[in-house]
């Protein structure tokens, strides 16, 4: 696939060329929206929206990583979706304090508040990871998904979510630590190499 040529054609309004790019990137984009939104239907909708807005604004792509550029539309679509949810709130999934910052320690999830039944539901590692991702504030989740799941560079992430590099670094470190702490509750699911001998660090 000659990506630059396809992009050029898409920029000239060639929908077929753009659709070939869609086919190439749709899994990556869907996984991003899925990990941020944690809902297959919403994730699919957001991915579709992302591609639609990507086509409409394809002329704003000025070189660089096309994947990172697409990620930006994908995270934007996720934020739009989350804003829509906030306007029409369903059952809250995350404990939020008044200032919409997630309650600091997610220990309640890992140790005490989960019933054995709930734990059984999350008996697969993937569910556990997704569960802990959901426990993160949206901005932290987006950073960690883009960095550790999609393998984006710091500068690409900074461009994708329009946030300074320093903030990206700080959010990523905090998100990783929190995830580690949260995953401690799913000890038995973790592969042996990940199991810790000690308690989670105290910071």
């Amino acid at each position, binding site marked *: 696939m000659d990506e630059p040529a396809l992009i050029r054609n898409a920029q000239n309004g060639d*929908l077929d060329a753009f659709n070939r790019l869609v086919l190439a990137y749709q899994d990556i984009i*869907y996984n991003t929206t899925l990990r941020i939104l944690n809902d297959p239907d919403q994730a*699919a909708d957001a991915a*579709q929206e992302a591609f639609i807005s990507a086509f*409409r604004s394809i002329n704003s792509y000025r070189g660089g990583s096309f994947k990172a550029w697409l990620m930006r539309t994908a995270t934007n679509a996720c934020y739009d979706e989350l804003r829509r949810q906030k306007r029409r709130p369903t059952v809250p999934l995350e404990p939020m304090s008044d200032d919409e910052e997630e309650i600091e320690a997610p220990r309640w999830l890992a140790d005490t508040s989960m019933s054995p039944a709930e734990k059984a539901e999350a008996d697969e590692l993937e569910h556990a990871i997704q569960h802990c991702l959901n426990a993160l504030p949206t901005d932290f989740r987006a950073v960690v998904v883009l960095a550790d*799941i999609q393998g984006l560079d*710091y500068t690409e992430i900074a461009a994708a979510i329009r946030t300074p590099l320093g903030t990206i670094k700080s959010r990523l470190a905090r998100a990783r*630590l929190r995830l580690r702490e949260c995953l401690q509750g799913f000890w038995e699911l973790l592969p042996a190499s990940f199991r810790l001998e000690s308690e*989670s660090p105290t*910071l």
Partner: protein
Amino acid sequence: MTTTFHDAELLSAYLDGKLSPAEISRIESRLKTDPELRLVIEDLRQARAILRQLPQRRAPRNFTLTPKMAGIKPPLPRIFPIFQFASAISAILLIFTFAFNLSAPIAATMQAAAPMYTAGKGGGSDIGPAAAPSDLMGAGAAAPTLESQRNIAAPTAAAESAPATTEMSITADALPTELPAPQPAPQIIHLPVSPQVQYLLLGLAALLGAAAFLVRAQTERNWFKSHAVQPTGLDKNQMLLLLAGIMLALGLAAGVYWLANTTFYAPAPLQPLTFPGGDKGGPAASGDKNTSNAGIFTLSPDMGYNYSYADNAGYIIAIDFPAGTFETATEVAFYAPPPDQPASISLPDGYLFAGRIFQVTPLPQLLPVLTPYTITIYYSDADVASIADESSLLLLVDGQDAAGTCPTVSIYERFPEPNMLRVNVCATGSFTLAAPAK
């Protein structure tokens, strides 16, 4: 040494290879000596590694875009906007002219609702206004009457100086000469824009609109075919829009047809009147008692009208016109010459003249009476002092009984007690009350 969050940030960046060489050597030397820092970096590394374990999911469907999603529309031929624009212009012009045509009768009616009207000051003192209205009237059938009016304008003015000495002879053919100058008849309002032009505009709008629609439909069909996309057809909004357009076109067509086939009359604005030999001028208003001995009022075929005149002696003449008295809209002049003017009337043997003579004459031309109208006379005791009013008759000047003018002979309603007589008549001209001598 305690671990800070800044340390965790540095370690996280260190794992991602985002530190400068100086930072790397510094953090590596600290890691060697600080077991707590080693725990933190282990946590970070594990979190990072676990996240990378997360399986990649396949997209549940293809997210390829349809032309509609992409907001791409088939390129329309250059003729399309021309058709569209021309159709819109025609439609706008049509609506505009329709509103313009519709406003003409409304404006005329509103203008006539507040007539400018000045009472004539003394009979014939000003000939100008008396002659002027006749100029406003159409030619043709009205011409002879107009001629006679113009001819009498000057003599009437001359007569004003000595009205009492003027011999007045009322005969049927002399009638118009004694009447005040008529006001203009109700005028047919001509629509400012001809219906033909409107039909043309409507046709243009519909044809061009249809052409634009077909051109677009054809272009889209071809384009969808060449792009291997399933045509979407008309969506709900487009259907509604199309339906609304058709309804609007039909509504406008009906409106134009209605306007074209309806005759609108503008009630003529009342002109200042002067009456020859009259005491006070003024138009008659329906239901009002007029003290002027002359008046002109307009009868429209679909409306009734009543006119009454009362003189100082208590003699009242009330005339009730039902709807349809005359076939067309017309002016009707009423004139009751002053009682001191001698009149020659042929009366049946043994009958005596009572009360006053009065004329009821349609203008400008004499029209046949299609529906009987009612004349009611209230006279005073003095009028019938020497006659038997229980046998009184309403006579035309030639001596004909007014009750016999209708196909069915009318029945007199006589009420000698309140001094009243009522009869339906089917003739116009000069009337007078007469009764046999006691």
